[in-house]
């Protein structure tokens, strides 16, 4: 079986869990004999994927590799778009994005060459504050950084026509255009994301034109337009894989344009894959997709080669309760703070670490102040690499109070450090974990009670850790691939 997989990122250059998930999933699929062409917007050259054929949509290919039936001239994006979906052609967001892409291409010769220079610095899951911090701490790839900081070498992308409301939110980080000030929705996205999504759709379609695939598998909304168009052209079935919904990231502040792209992908798909039952029911609720069209394939984790034998390097005397993640609406940081205040009534020397950054961080600092528990809180900011390892290995309990979490890999990581974890029931990962404490994100009394119990009862800690150690061995990507292959087969057979 030969498939085309459309992704948005691939390790090591990742901004969230999607790239890691794609790596795990494709590795396990390849072990089952699935032949994969994996297409991402941009390749950096550091990717390591011996198990499949990794393609960059924007990477220049030798002309002889261009399929014979590929248009030799600049493609007409409008034609591509209308062909993909007549409804799309009336969608202002796409029209604008494609116009922008075309204008840019026209300016600098061929579209193909131009694509090469598009830095993949647009991180679909990051809010502006986090994004800024990533840039300043150098976590973002240097290529992208150069693109950011050096407008000379990479001329800024053309601004979208301001008459088109759908693009008003697409503004440069830290550079609020007055015209965009009214729109609060979508501010958690990077600059010109929509333009890049459309551009990806366009170049991806060209990149694989003439190739034969049994099916097309597209990961998350950014790749859905590309998936719809490629599947249509190839006459192949389309599988769309939902790792998170716009609703998860933004709640009721959801961006309606993204919601619309999600919906079109879901409607065109032969089959939908959700990373959890939680996400499956959310897709059904938000988009009305019939439940029997949606299959659940839980994520896996990579087995850690050796568990990091960190000596506990504590700076505090009391037990440590850890929150680690983006400090945004989706991650529920305020419930962590509220629970902390209640825990301190029982365990006065407990220390709470809120590691990460995001648009809610200032509010969280203020809330901690207001509750009078500043002395018990630490805000170390965005952690990386060894810092994350140390945070996990010196914590007594890890809490993920997410308001809406399609899957959530961090608790599994905490478990691999032998840490007890508390996860919200509004997370996909809570479906696959037995040996974690579970709580509704809003039930701060119960969350506090669970934290207190973990800190006070060694038998609880010991049992959680021992069982979890056993359990995470069974949450692996091979299990995911085992579920996915029969889905592929049934989709291909029609």
């Amino acid at each position, binding site marked *: 079986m030969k498939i085309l997989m459309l992704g948005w990122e691939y390790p090591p250059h990742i901004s969230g869990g999607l790239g890691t998930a794609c790596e795990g999933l494709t590795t396990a699929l390849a072990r089952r004999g699935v032949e994969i062409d994996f297409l991402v917007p941009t390749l950096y050259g550091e990717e390591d994927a011996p198990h499949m054929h990794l393609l960059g949509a924007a990477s220049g290919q030798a002309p002889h590799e261009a399929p014979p039936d590929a248009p030799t001239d600049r493609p007409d994006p409008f034609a591509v778009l209308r062909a993909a979906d007549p409804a799309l052609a009336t969608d202002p967001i796409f029209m604008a994005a494609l116009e922008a892409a075309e204008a840019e291409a026209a300016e600098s010769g061929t579209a193909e060459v131009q694509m090469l220079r598009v830095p993949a610095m647009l991180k679909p899951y990051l809010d502006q504050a986090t994004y800024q911090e990533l840039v300043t701490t150098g976590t973002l790839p240097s290529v992208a950084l150069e693109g950011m900081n050096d407008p000379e070498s990479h001329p800024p992308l053309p601004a979208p026509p301001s008459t088109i409301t759908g693009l008003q939110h697409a503004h440069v980080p830290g550079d609020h255009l007055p015209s965009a000030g009214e729109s609060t929705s979508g501010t958690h996205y990077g600059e010109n994301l929509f333009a890049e999504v459309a551009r990806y759709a366009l170049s991806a379609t060209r990149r694989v034109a003439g190739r034969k695939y049994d099916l097309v598998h597209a990961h998350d909304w950014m790749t859905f337009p590309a998936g719809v168009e490629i599947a249509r052209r190839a006459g192949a079935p389309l599988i769309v894989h939902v790792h998170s919904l716009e609703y998860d990231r933004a709640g009721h502040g959801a961006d309606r344009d993204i919601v619309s792209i999600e919906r079109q992908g879901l409607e065109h798909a032969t089959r939908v894959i959700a990373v959890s039952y939680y996400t499956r029911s959310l897709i059904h609720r938000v988009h009305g997709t019939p439940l029997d069209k949606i299959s659940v394939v839980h994520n896996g984790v990579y087995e850690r080669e050796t568990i990091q034998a960190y000596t506990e390097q504590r700076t505090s005397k009391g037990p440590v309760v850890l929150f680690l993640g983006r400090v945004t609406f989706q991650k529920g940081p305020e419930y962590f703070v509220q629970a902390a205040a209640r825990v301190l009534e029982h365990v006065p020397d407990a220390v709470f670490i809120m590691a990460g950054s995001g648009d809610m961080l200032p509010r969280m600092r203020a809330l901690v102040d207001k509750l009078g528990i500043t002395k018990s809180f630490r805000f170390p900011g965005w952690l990386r690499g060894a810092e994350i390892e140390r945070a996990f290995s010196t914590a007594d309990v890890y809490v993920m109070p997410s308001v809406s979490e399609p899957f959530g890999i961090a608790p599994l990581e905490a478990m691999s450090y032998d840490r007890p974890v508390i996860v919200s029931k509004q997370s996909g990962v809570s479906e696959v974990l037995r040996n974690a404490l579970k709580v509704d994100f809003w039930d701060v009394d119960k969350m506090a009670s669970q934290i207190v119990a973990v800190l006070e009862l060694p*038998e609880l800690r010991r049992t959680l850790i021992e069982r979890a150690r056993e359990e995470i061995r069974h949450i692996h990507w091979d299990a995911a691939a085992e579920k996915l292959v029969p889905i592929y087969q049934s989709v291909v057979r029609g």
Partner: protein
Amino acid sequence: MPSVCFYFEVHQPYRLKPYGAQQVGRDHDYFDDKLNAEVLRKVADKCYLPANYSMLRLIERTDGRFCISYAITGVAIEQMKRHAPEVMDSFVQLAETGAVEFIAETYYHSLAALYDTDEYEEQIEQQVALIEEEFGQKPRVFRNTELIYNDEIGRFIADLGFDAMLCEGADDILDWRSPNFVYTAAGREMRLLTKNYKLSDDIAFRFSNQAWAEYPLTADKFARWVHGHSGAGDVINLFMDYETFGEHQWRETGIFEFLEHLPDLLFTHPDWDILTPSQVIDRYPALGELPFHRTVSWADEARDISAWRGNAMQQRALSEIYSLGPAIRRRNNSHLLALWRRLQTSDHFYYMATKSASDGAVHDYFSPYEGPYDAFIHYMNVMKDLNRSVLAPVEKRIGI
């Protein structure tokens, strides 16, 4: 002339309410009265009332040739009287037929046998008194909580004067022996009746399992299996939870029709009859001693006590509750004593078990039960409150 012996366990615990850290020191009502009432009424409607009705009819129709035995825990009787008194009435009616034997156990369905023998004895006495009072019978036969048994427990019960005890017919205990004979406890004359777990579980667990090769299980088929043991045993002991009828196996599975037809089909073989445990030991001689080299129960694949103390949480909770014994007794307060004993009910510890396989448990999310860890947390918070709010103040006063 071989026999079939039916024994049904009737038990409902006092379940704890979700009891968080915030409640410690403030809330001294530990049990979920609403839930307990609901469960009891539900089980009464689905199982106790219709099953009792079936049993009564069968007894009347066969003129007592169909006979059965029950163990009904004290905590179940308390709750029936409160929430479904008609269930108690129908058990009394069954007792009056003379074809029903009542078996003793601990009033609180506790694990006291493993922790506190004085306490164990008191809970047995309390239960025996209750059975006499409610049903007018003095039990001759004993069953320990969840058929938990070892030689030490056997000797203890024998020395209390019981004539027989029920236990699990575990393979490694029986070894080359058959469960279908009467044995004696190691070093005592007390008889042991061993459960035929194969045939018992065919009804209790596999009856409605469509993946089972023998599905559907008809009364006719089951009677033939029983008759197949002719000449190879004295008694087939069919021991199970009473909730098998209508609750574990829903009415829709046909379990009541199965029950309805079974006695007549068993009687189609002229050699076979049905006896209660006391009648069994009066008729059949013991074949020999049956020593238990380990503690056995009827729970889980392992048939051991790991269902209640297999992990560190369970062990902690159990040692916590039993360590309160001296302080509780010193108070000489019957209300407090009853409270302490309700907290000893084995179900609390069963809820803390972490053995079920991690795979395929995806829909725990929707389960009304919140899993072993929350069960432990609630229980330990209750312990904390009991220690702090109920016991500690008085200890202080005594100290002065």
